[in-house]
């Protein structure tokens, strides 16, 4: 079953004094299956947040439609299956963590008994069980992000939508949020999250969509996008005579990196590795390491951005 579906979604904003129309989303076709973790990648201004707000009924699409678990996204009942963490969420800072969650539980339609059961469990899950009675104005940025995550998980939503959940966090804060997301993945919840922090997307997602200039440039499973082909091989050698090192540099992607008696070469593909190793051993050198490199998501993303820049 599809947890998220966008069909022909376009969005125009009116900007400037003359209220000119600017299209920020172009005919978006997107589906996310139940239980998938979907990473929505794109540079700033690509239209990621616009897509998310359309999914949550906060923006009305200029054309097309969006659905959450088969329910039209503009209808309030569609949001009963979703939890949302906005980018840099704002809170009622005079409330304590528990009061805030109790308020959000009421909005989510939870009974008092369910709220009493879920709130301590969620505070514990996001590592804030000791801070539930503290006012939100006394929370750090990381703690606010975690209480935001806790409110998104109130009512056990089938779909969790996170807009740049790791943005502005320090490495520890990022890890904490990432761990919660790994947990959601294990629970087979549908997670749709936008990010421009590519390693996080690569680490967490089943499928990825790359949005550039309001158009979906690439979409697919991570292994499909990355492929199985070796892109380059990094070979580290030692004790090579200088003339042998210079000869090996001919087949390398970049000039060899020399550090003392060590030489590091980056070769295109796997093809030239055997020859380099043979010639090294024949010249009296030693092979220290051979590390194959596949194309990273970051490289794919940057290549897409560069490609779009050329067009």
């Amino acid at each position, binding site marked *: 079953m599809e947890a998220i579906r966008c069909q022909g979604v376009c969005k125009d*904003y009116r900007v400037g004094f003359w209220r000119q129309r600017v299209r920020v989303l172009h005919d978006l076709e997107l589906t996310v299956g139940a239980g998938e973790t979907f990473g929505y990648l794109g540079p700033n201004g690509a239209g990621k947040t616009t897509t998310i*707000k359309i999914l*949550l*009924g*906060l*923006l*009305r699409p200029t054309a097309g439609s969006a659905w959450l678990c088969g329910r039209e996204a503009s209808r*309030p*009942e*569609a*949001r*009963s299956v*979703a939890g*949302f963490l*906005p980018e840099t*969420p*704002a*809170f*009622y800072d*005079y409330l304590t963590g528990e009061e805030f969650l109790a*308020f*959000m539980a*009421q*909005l*989510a*339609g939870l009974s008092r008994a369910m709220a009493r059961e879920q709130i301590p469990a969620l505070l514990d899950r996001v590592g804030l069980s000791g801070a539930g009675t503290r006012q939100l104005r006394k929370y750090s940025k990381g703690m606010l992000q975690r209480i*935001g995550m806790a*409110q998104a998980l109130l009512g056990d939503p089938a779909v969790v939508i996170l807009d740049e959940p790791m943005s502005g966090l320090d490495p520890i804060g990022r890890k904490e949020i990432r761990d919660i997301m790994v947990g959601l993945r294990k629970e087979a919840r549908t997670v749709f999250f936008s990010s421009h922090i590519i390693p996080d997307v690569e680490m967490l997602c089943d499928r990825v969509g790359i949005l550039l200039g309001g158009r979906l440039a690439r979409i697919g499973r991570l292994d499909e996008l990355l492929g199985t082909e070796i892109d380059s091989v990094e070979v580290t050698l030692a004790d090579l005579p200088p003339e042998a090192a210079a000869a090996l540099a001919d087949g390398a992607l970049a000039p060899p990196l020399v550090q003392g008696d060590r030489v590091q070469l980056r070769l295109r593909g796997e093809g030239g590795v055997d020859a380099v190793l043979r010639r090294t051993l024949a010249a009296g050198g030693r092979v220290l390491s051979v590390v194959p490199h596949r194309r990273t998501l970051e490289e794919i993303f940057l290549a897409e951005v560069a490609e779009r820049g050329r067009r």
Partner: protein
Amino acid sequence: MRRVLAIALMAFTEAVRDRVLYIILVFALAMIGSSAALVTISVGGEGRIVKDLGLACITLFGLFIAVFIGIRLVSREIERRTVLLLLSRPVGRGAFLVGKFIGLALTLFVNVGAMALGLLLLARMLEGEWTPPLLLAAGFAFLELTILTAFSILFATFSTPTLSTVLTLLVFVIGRLSRDLVAFAAQFDSVSLHTTASAIYYALPNLSLFNLGSLGAGGSLPSGATLLLTAAYALGYMTAILALAIAIFRRRDFQ
């Protein structure tokens, strides 16, 4: 309904925690209290002066609460983007605005009640007897203020806080004077002037209906039927304005 009440309670809590509310309330009670000083320089009708001034203070300071707290509550929710969290839950936009309205009306009720009780006690001290019609007059001032609250919410759904404040104050001034405006226009032969005055009279609420000030302070009260009709007029008007606010708010994008 539970969601509406949750939003109403949160709006009330937020208003109660707003320092501006206490500044307005303390200033209002001080004004009502200091009107007693006028008694010493007036000749006769001391209690009436205090009651008239007191009721005027209730309306004026209630207006400040409706405008400054009301607009802040809705606009700030949008500006601070807390509205994104609220509306990402299964909460309709209508429920959001109705909740805000109920919370604000509750804030006004408590404050108008506090001011009315202060005035009632002061009048008792000066005249040696209770004046129950004062409470009725304060009740109608409350109805007038809830209409203005509905307008402040309407304006906050599509304009800036400053513009919303100006527009709500304009509704109050024109609403209070619209009957006089029609009477004034009748003195001239200009058809366009008559049409404009009538258009304003019918488009904006006739707030002078709710001013029982001089009546409550000693004069005769309107009949029960008139009072009921006036209350129904207030309910009808605020419902219509809220419905308009909801229609506009439903079309609003939260970028």
